[in-house]
Structure formats: C-alpha cells, structure tokens
C-alpha cells in the first residue's frame, strides 16, 4: 500500500495524543491548574493535529462532515464519532482539572473513549480482507500498545513506559512474523484471482496498460520494500531500544529524550505498516 504521509501522521500523532489522554484521564500523573493546561494542550495538539492531517488524504475535505453518517457499518465513520466523543469528554475533564476539580469517573470514561478511538482507527485497516497483512487481530492490539507506550513516555511515566515498550516490542515482532506469512496463508493467489489455476501455472503476460494507474500507485507500492529489513531494525531501535536506554540511564537525566525518539520510531514503523502491506489486487498485475 502507498505510505501516504497524511495517513502516517494521522495514525501516529492521534495515537500518541489519545495515549497521553488515557494516562491523564487515569490520573498518572495527577495534574492540576497550569500543569493540566499544558498537558491537555499537548494531548489535544497531537490528537487534533493527527485528525486534521487525515483530512489531507481526502479528495474532498470540505465534505468531511458527511463521514459521520454511516457508523453502523463503517469503521472510518465510527472513528470519527469516537474521536469527537473522546475529545469532548477529555476536554471537559481537563477543563475541570484546570479549575482544580477532579471528577475521577469522567477521567476514566475519557481514557476508555481514547482507547476506543485508537481501536477504531486500527480497525479501518484491520477490517480489510483485501490486505492479508492487516486483516489480523494483532493489528489493533499493536496500535493500542504503541499509542499507550507513546502516551506513557510523554506523560513521563518511567517504569510504566518501560514495561509498555517491552510489550510493544514483543507485539511488533509477533506482528512482523505473522504478517510476513499472511498473504501466502490467506489462500488468495493469481490462481484464485483469475480462476484459471486448474488449467496450469498462471502468469501475467501483459498488463491492461503500459503506464501506472490509480490502483498500482495506491495499492501496489513496491519501492520501499527493498530496504524493509534495514528499516525494521531502524524503526525498532528508534521506537523501542532507544527510549528504553534513555529510561534506564542512571539518574534519569535522559528520560525526556525517550518520547521524541519513540515518536520518530513509530513513524518509521507506521511507514512500514503501509509500505509492506500487500493488496490482493496486485496479483492481477503479477505484482505484490
């Protein structure tokens, strides 16, 4: 799949913003007054900025409000509703905190909605059968883990952040191992795509056109896969190993470096999430 910048920023930034809202909602750390204002401003900048950048992916951003209509069937629509609900509840809770009022259940509800929003974001991808690497239960779990670890690091939670980084790294490794086999195990091949498998070995002889088209550019992205192994190492180093190192450094002087490194690493991992995903339509073009 084509790794669109707007979608990488959307999923990473909104994930980290909602992750931060989870910890603020749970009261780890407990913030009040001006500290609450700063923390919530950062969380809203991340979550809101991410959501705004998703609009740049649209052909008609001016019609974006219509995306609230079909929540019954569409995860994209559910994501829109949940993000608005999460931002509203957390905004209200944050406002109360700034005024020195702590309504704990409101914070818990905000945390729950923030997690639900990240789940909905990931389900936009995980619900697509056409991309076997995405159509897996570990995808939403990994999205939530990365959002929570990012949130914990920004919230300055040293040991909680460290354990979440460990869980995230394990899940990412698992997702890569399973994902690499996903297309082969899905049972979809050029033989089932063309229905001609019973006649012999099928090979694409000629594409329908000499150039590219919307489908090949959007869904048959092969450029970045060349360096996938190296990028995995770089992404894992930035997102997990680096931040863990900064958290463990004696004295805690480098703790503040963990969050920006994790954010950068998550961007690399998310780039790979798109670039490495194979859409089955590529089979019709004899490509992956």
């Amino acid at each position, binding site marked *: 799949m084509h790794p669109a910048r707007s979608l990488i920023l959307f999923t990473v930034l909104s994930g980290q913003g909602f992750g931060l809202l989870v910890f603020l909602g749970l009261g780890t750390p407990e913030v009040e007054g001006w500290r609450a204002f700063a923390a919530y401003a950062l969380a809203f900048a991340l979550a809101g900025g991410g959501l705004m950048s998703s609009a740049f992916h649209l052909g008609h951003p001016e019609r974006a409000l219509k*995306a609230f209509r079909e929540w019954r069937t569409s995860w994209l629509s559910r994501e829109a509703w949940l993000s608005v609900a999460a931002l509203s509840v957390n905004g209200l809770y944050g406002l109360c905190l700034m005024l020195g009022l702590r309504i704990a259940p409101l914070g818990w509800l905000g945390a729950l909605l923030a997690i639900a929003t990240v789940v909905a974001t990931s389900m936009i991808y995980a619900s697509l059968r056409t991309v076997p690497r995405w159509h897996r239960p570990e995808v939403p779990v990994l999205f939530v883990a990365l959002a929570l670890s990012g949130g914990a690091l920004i919230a300055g939670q040293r040991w909680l952040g460290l354990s979440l980084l460990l869980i995230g790294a394990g899940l990412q490794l698992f997702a890569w191992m399973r994902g690499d086999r996903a297309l082969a195990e899905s049972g979809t091949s050029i033989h089932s795509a063309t229905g001609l498998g019973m006649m012999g070995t099928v090979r694409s002889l000629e594409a329908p056109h000499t150039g590219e*088209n919307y489908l090949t550019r959007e869904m048959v992205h092969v450029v970045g896969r060349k360096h996938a192994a190296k990028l995995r190492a770089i992404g894992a180093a930035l997102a997990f190993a680096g931040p863990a190192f900064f958290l463990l450094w004696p004295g805690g002087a480098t703790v503040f470096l963990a969050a920006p490194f994790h954010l950068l690493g998550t961007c690399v991992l998310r780039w790979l999430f798109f670039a490495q995903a194979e859409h089955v339509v590529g089979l019709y073009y004899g490509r992956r």
Partner: protein
Amino acid sequence: MTALPDKTDRTLGLVIDLDICVGCHACVVACKGWNDTSQTSGLSDSDPYGEAPEGAFLNRIHSYEITREDAPATVVHFPKSCLHCEDAPCVTVCPTGASFKRREDGIVLVNEDDCIGCGLCAWACPYGAREMDPTTQVMKKCTLCVDRIYNEELPEIDREPACVRTCPANARHFGDLSDPGSAVSKLVAAREGMDLMPEMDTRPVNKYLPPRPRDAEIDVLAPLLEPVAEEPRGFLKWLDAALDRI
C-alpha cells in the same frame, strides 16, 4: 445507506466468456467513451497526450499466460470490471453512504455528491474495480451503464452496457442472474461459470466462463493425414549417410 440489502429484486450483472475474448480492448474504449460523455463529471485522464498518460477506467483487460508441462502455453484475455458483489465490501466501508447497492436490481453505485474521496472503498475491493477520478477526486466505478439499460430514448438494441454492446466477439453478456431462466443464467449453468477470489466471500454477481479445452477437437482429421516421415528416403537417405561419414 451503506448497509447491504438482504435481497435484491433482480440481480443484474455480466457474464464474461474467457474462451471467446480476443483481447481487442474494444469494450475498454466503449466504456471509457460512454462514461466520459454520458455523465456531467466525466471520466478523466491526467496528462493524456504527454509523457505519462494515465486515467480512470471502469473496465480493463489483463492478459495471462498459462503454462503446462504436457501442453503448449495458452493465452487468456481477461476483462475485469466491477462484479457488483452481493456482499460488496466497498459499500459497507464507505463512511458517508456515497456507495450503495440498489435493492431493485443489485447495481452498486456511487453518489458522487456525497463522496469525500477517502479511497477506502477502493482499498476494500479485491478486484481493483474502483478508481479515483484524477480531476474530480471522487470514486468512479462501473454503473452497469445504468443510464443506458433503462434509457427509453435509446433504441431497444442499445439498452445494454456499452461494453456488451460493442464486443465484436460476443464475449460479454448482460442479464438478470437471479432468474434461472435468463440467457445469462443458462450460460453460467452450461459452462460452469465461476467466481473470482471466492475465498474473499464477496459473492460476486458477475460470472466468468472458463476457457474450454481445445486439443481434442483439433485431432479430428489427424488419422487422414499422411504421417511425417521419421526416416529419410532416396537422395536424402544417401545425403544423411554421406554427411554422417564425414
């Protein structure tokens, strides 16, 4: 509404005969021509006369080579357009309701005024049936020529999709696949029409007729033909032997 209808009154669709298609791309041109001119928003191209011409098409023809150990390779031309699936994943993912499946005839359509151009429906389609219009930035797809098949302004013979009407080999057929007595349903029954990517559970309406086996029929005259001489005779026999001795 992006919820799919439980049942459609009719199930209009295409039956495509892979045995007959000659890969002339006439249906591609007819489709592009009709859909570019019949709708106000057109079906545009980007850089059509430049270095990298590209554009939105609702119907494309692939060509595949099939090789076997025990027979010569075969080439199959493979037209592909929207299959108007009964469980259309492109419809249910649409956040705005722009994509919908009609209860009366099962045609999957896009209401372009509601399309936000997010592209999620194109991602959800395993067949590559939807393409973004490079100019209007809304999703385009096969309408089964809904503006032809019910158009009483047209002569009756023309009230079928442009691709079907234009096919010089009669490789494309249009009809109601829910009616077992229809010509298309009979074709599907007689030729064991198949679904593409059945494992995706999309339940496509369009059916593909597989190529028929061919070699057996070619051999009808074989016994009457003089066998090719394996051993040379006369002058050739002498020449063969002489050359062997050198």
